[in-house]
């Protein structure tokens, strides 16, 4: 066996170890959550870890995760697309380079920093400038019900929107840059304006890649823990059901972060939390797979391997 072979098998082994880790993770999550897994676990709304009257239902947290991520997508994706379009189609070269660099740096800010900023500064802005006017003029709508206090589902969704902007906009920019110039030239030659070129020549071409970029952002929003925990209000049980944007809620990730340390090992509480982890894992994995597939497709178009 030559040295090259030794090296090959060695790095091969290391690569397989990471796959093995993923497999073992799923296995362990499944093993520990088995005692609580049932339909009642997924569709129940009560969460009572008190020994003797234990009951675990995670519907409010699944809904909380979905609602906060949806807000993040609704607010964050259009802004990110705007940034990406400006950077790839319109910005002069030196602005493009600096801005792209800064936006990518933003993606590296630890989430706890966003969380602290959210807790000490951002929540008051949300309360004073967004929630109170909404509550005053649209308070009759069920989704704007209740006294706003700034630590609620809306604030969590908005923090998430801010956090996914760097990811979504930098991936979208890559995707837009990958659109071949012949596309743009073709539309220009028909006498189109700048906006028409972007709409017809670029965006429609890059559609699936942009969807992929957004889903990548969704993946981050779904799994985000620290920042959400600090601003979402951390309600539990039926009171965590996201019936109004001005209510304290809870996501799956924040629930695990909140309760795992003190979960009593003689009860099913730790098992239930691991069960939440399993559901979250499955959700995040699906989202990421979907995004990967879509981004791959568009990047391959550039290389000319796909029609």
């Amino acid at each position, binding site marked *: 066996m030559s040295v090259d072979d030794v090296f090959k098998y060695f790095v091969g082994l290391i690569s397989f170890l990471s796959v093995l880790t993923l497999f073992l993770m799923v296995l362990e999550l499944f093993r520990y959550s088995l005692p609580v897994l049932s339909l009642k676990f997924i569709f129940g709304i009560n969460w009572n*870890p008190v020994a003797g009257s234990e009951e675990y239902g995670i519907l409010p947290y699944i809904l909380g995760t979905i609602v906060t991520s949806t807000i993040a997508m609704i607010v964050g994706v259009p802004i990110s697309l705007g940034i990406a379009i400006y950077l790839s189609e319109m910005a002069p070269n030196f602005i493009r380079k600096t801005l792209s660099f800064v936006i990518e740096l933003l993606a590296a800010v630890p989430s706890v920093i966003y969380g602290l900023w959210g807790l000490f500064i951002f929540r008051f802005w949300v309360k004073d400038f967004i929630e109170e006017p909404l509550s005053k003029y649209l308070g009759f709508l069920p989704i704007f019900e209740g006294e706003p*206090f700034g630590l609620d589902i809306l604030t969590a969704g908005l923090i998430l929107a801010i956090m996914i902007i760097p990811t979504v906009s930098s991936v979208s920019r890559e995707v837009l840059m990958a659109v071949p110039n012949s596309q743009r030239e073709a539309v220009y030659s028909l006498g189109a304006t700048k906006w028409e070129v972007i709409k017809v020549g670029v965006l429609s071409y890059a559609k699936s890649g942009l969807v992929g970029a957004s889903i990548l952002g969704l993946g981050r929003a779904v799994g985000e823990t620290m920042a959400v925990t600090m601003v979402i209000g951390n*309600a539990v049980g039926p009171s965590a059901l996201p019936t109004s944007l001005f209510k304290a809620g809870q996501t799956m990730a924040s629930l695990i972060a909140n309760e*795992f*340390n003190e979960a009593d090992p003689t009860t099913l509480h730790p098992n239930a939390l691991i069960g939440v982890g399993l559901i979250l894992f499955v959700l995040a994995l699906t989202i990421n797979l979907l995004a990967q597939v879509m981004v791959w497709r568009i990047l391959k178009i550039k290389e000319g391997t796909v029609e």
Partner: protein
Amino acid sequence: MQKNVLIGIVAVIILVLGILLVGPYLQPKTETVTQTLATTITTATTVTTSTDTTILQTTSITVTQPTTTPKSIMLNGAGASFPYPLLSTMIVQYNKIYPHVMINYQSIGSGGGIRQHTNKTVDFAASDAPLNEDQRKAAPDTLHIPITIGCVVVAYNLPNVPKGLKLTGELVAEIFLGNVKKWNDPLIANLNPGIQLPDKEIIVVHRSDGSGTTFVFTSYLSMVSPEWNSKVGKGTAVQWPIGLGAAGNEGVAGVVRGTPYTIGYVELAYALQTKMNYAYLKNRDGYFVEPTLNSTAAAAEALSPSLPKGDESWEKVSLLNAPGKDSYPIVSFSYILVYKELSVLPKMDKEKAFELVKFLWWAIHDGQNYAPNLQYVPLPKSVISLNEETLRTITFNGQKMLG
């Protein structure tokens, strides 16, 4: 050339892995020469009790100490975050006196402490709640050593209302159940004539993380309110009917201080350090008591004669709603948990066991001097003598650590 570099890299990796794998077995077995020699340690302790009298207590204990040159010893503990500032101060001071003893305490929460204690991965644990029957079965022969006394205060943020709003336990339960919704509810107003209460919704703030503080607070509410007891119950994490959660004492303190019309519960030390406004609670004898170090100590003192022995079940022990004119009602012990027979711990040896017991002995005597400055309540004398009894029963392979 490249091939040579590859060979080099692979060789280095194999070497490193090899050393890591085989290393532990290659270490020369150290011959531990243990000469038993009687050493006398004299501890002079100043204990401040609730009545502010100072008792000088001199205790002599004879210990069997394995002597060679002091080998450096590492002790690991984990658990409750409430006593963490006190414990870490004690650990730093202890290390100044005995530099060869290194103590490491991770404040991971009472539940985590109990878990590590049960799995025998730490030398001692700390918990705000005593072990219940199931937990005792999982970790048989665990000793409870009260190390300090905690006090939970009901803090609020009402513009223009200073500290001292009068509340009863039943009323606090009604507020946290969501039955009393407004600050100017007649139930609150009747207890506080002369205070202008706003017509605003009460925003309830609770802990979002599992916590010994929550356990103490919900135990008190369960005790005074049958509705709370049946609907919510007590635990380190419960299903809160209303309100928003914040992580940690500092989280609750932050939200309450930053948001008007909130009410929450925090440890006394946090309320004092962050200058929050807190309520005076009605105690069992009908007096409204301000939460202070003295009213906390009074509650512990009132109930200390009825405490069980260290190796008995402490599940029923409660300093809540203690009798006495000066007793504040939401008070509890914070415990150190250790095994009575230390050889059950896989990484324990005789020297470590001895150093552990010596540290605990110091912590319940001299260590208590550091409590008042950190807003902790020093242990009353009766509890210290109970702890002395408990510590004397600790053994390693059947051999007593303290004479």
